[in-house]
């Protein structure tokens, strides 16, 4: 659909396009806000060792459960670990796992969606039945169940999220390719004697991949939430590694006396989700009306 519109729009205003695009990206408020929040979080994660005043795992029972002070900006937990340092290092773990976790389903889903949409027939039937099967379960329930079976740890998180997450990419890409493969430039590429692989990789995918990229932005949010949830349940990142989910879980017992232990990591999750969602929205606005 969009490709058709794009093609005709491109025909109508061939010259003004690049200028228009350049003019709009910084007027896109969600994009700017999202880029700022996400950018800051990534900076914090990357430079965690420089930002954190203490080793996130170093216990000091002499100062356990102290409130916020000049020494400990956000206080300490029951083992005397600096909450601020753990928060900063938690960003490192959760963001890294989130960004890596989105890659595998992206690649798998794009691949399966491409061959299903392009070749149709029995490949399409098999892939779409698999999609229907996975979609029948709620995302978090299936991820949690899979990690439970596979055992805790990063590897299990990646496997579980890939198994559950690829279906969305496959659906998006398949739909886009069903439309794109009827377009003249794909027909022209085929009439040039190019192999199916080449037609898909060089002519079809570059024209439809933006939709999957936009979706990936919101998918990262879902993945990070899944990771935090898993860690909260004790299925994700194994302690003592700092991670927001386990921090929320550990702080729960002290909610009435030391509310910041659970609340601050919770807010960090909310902020991350907000930043990435805004980024996704902004990107969608930027890419949708006139991809290229």
């Amino acid at each position, binding site marked *: 659909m969009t490709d058709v519109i794009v093609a005709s729009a491109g025909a109508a205003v061939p010259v003004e396009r690049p200028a228009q695009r350049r003019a709009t990206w910084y007027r896109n408020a969600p994009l700017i806000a999202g880029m700022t929040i996400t950018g800051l979080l990534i900076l914090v994660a990357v430079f965690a060792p420089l930002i954190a005043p203490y080793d996130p795992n170093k216990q000091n029972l002499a100062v356990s459960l102290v409130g916020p002070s000049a020494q400990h900006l956000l206080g300490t937990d029951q083992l005397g670990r600096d909450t601020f340092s753990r928060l900063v290092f938690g960003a490192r773990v959760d963001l890294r796992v989130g960004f890596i976790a989105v890659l595998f389903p992206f690649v798998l889903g794009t691949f399966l969606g491409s061959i299903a949409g392009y070749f149709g027939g029995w490949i399409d039937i098999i892939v779409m039945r698999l999609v229907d099967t996975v979609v029948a379960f709620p995302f978090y329930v299936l991820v949690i169940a899979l990690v439970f079976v596979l055992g805790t740890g990063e590897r299990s998180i990646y496997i579980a999220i890939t198994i559950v997450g690829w279906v969305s990419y496959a659906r998006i890409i398949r739909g886009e390719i069903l439309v794109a493969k009827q377009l003249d430039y794909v027909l022209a590429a085929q009439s040039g004697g190019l192999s199916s692989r080449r037609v898909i990789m060089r002519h079809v995918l570059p024209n439809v991949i933006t939709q999957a990229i936009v979706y990936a932005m919101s998918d990262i949010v879902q993945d990070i939430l899944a990771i935090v949830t898993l860690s909260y349940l004790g299925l994700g990142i194994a302690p003592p590694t700092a991670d927001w989910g386990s921090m929320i879980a550990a702080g729960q017992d002290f909610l009435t006396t030391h509310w910041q232990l659970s609340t601050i990591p919770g807010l960090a999750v909310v902020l991350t989700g907000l930043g990435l969602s805004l980024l996704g929205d902004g990107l969608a606005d930027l890419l949708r009306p006139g991809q*290229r």
Partner: protein
Amino acid sequence: MTALLEVEDLQVEIRNRRGAVHVVENVSFSVESGRAMGLVGESGSGKSMTLRAMMGLLPTEAHISEGRVLLNGEDLVTAPRRRLQQLRGPQIAMVFQEPMSALNPVMRVGEQIAEGPRVHLGLSRSQGADKALELMRRVGIPDPERRAFDYPHQFSGGMRQRVMIAIALSCEPRLILCDEPTTALDVTIQDQILRLLTGLCADTGTSLVFVTHDLPVVAEVCQTVAVMYAGRILESGGVTEVFRQPRHPYTLGLLRSAPDFAETREGLIPIPGAPPDPYAPPSGCVFHPRCAFATADCATQPMPLRQVTATRTTACIHDDRALESQKLLPVAQ
């Protein structure tokens, strides 16, 4: 001269919920090396389907149910997919109607032109780039060194069609199929593109199959012509003889409904009625419900193409009356 391309009894069938239809029925023609054949008819007469069937690029719901497409004696209908991929490009190429949509919007033009030679002729990246520049020069794109790095949306319609032609020519095919290559262009650009296409084909001895509904274009470009209606060929022969002495009422109707500036006519004479429903084609001659010459026989007996002279065929049994009528009310061509 021997025929480069021979299409024999080609039949394309579309199956869907309403049943099976033959959108191309018993179409046969041949094109000799270095010659151009026109395929004319109204929209929906099966011209484009015939081309796509020859390329093996029919839409999923359509398939070739009968017939052969022989290119140099090799049947393209039964050829395996890999063999077809080898033939498309170096043997048979296609130019599309809409230069706007027939180029990949996110790929640089130079790359698109170089892609065929790189795949089929095994050129390296830099050889491919050189080849692209050479082709862009040949099709008259100014400043190719710079333009090769532009994207299709930075080109005008005429320039894009030149790019399409460069792509079609890139692997030096023996045959180029043109699907209304000038319909989407301005008249002035149309003429440039036609001259370019015919000139380049004359240089390289490339044959053309030229699909269009524009009769003057056929007269300018082609040596032979086949007139299609409702998926069938109704008349064929040399361009001048078919247009000067049409032997089918449908051809006559087409000629009379086309505007003509050489000789101002009182008005165009449209063909009454509309093309038949492909799901329920009329019995006998497919054209008889719209035909001024139709008699009772026309509705009952099938009308196969028959040879009238050495070079001409017609599907009409009243071809003499069509000829007669042409003499009374001549159409200048």
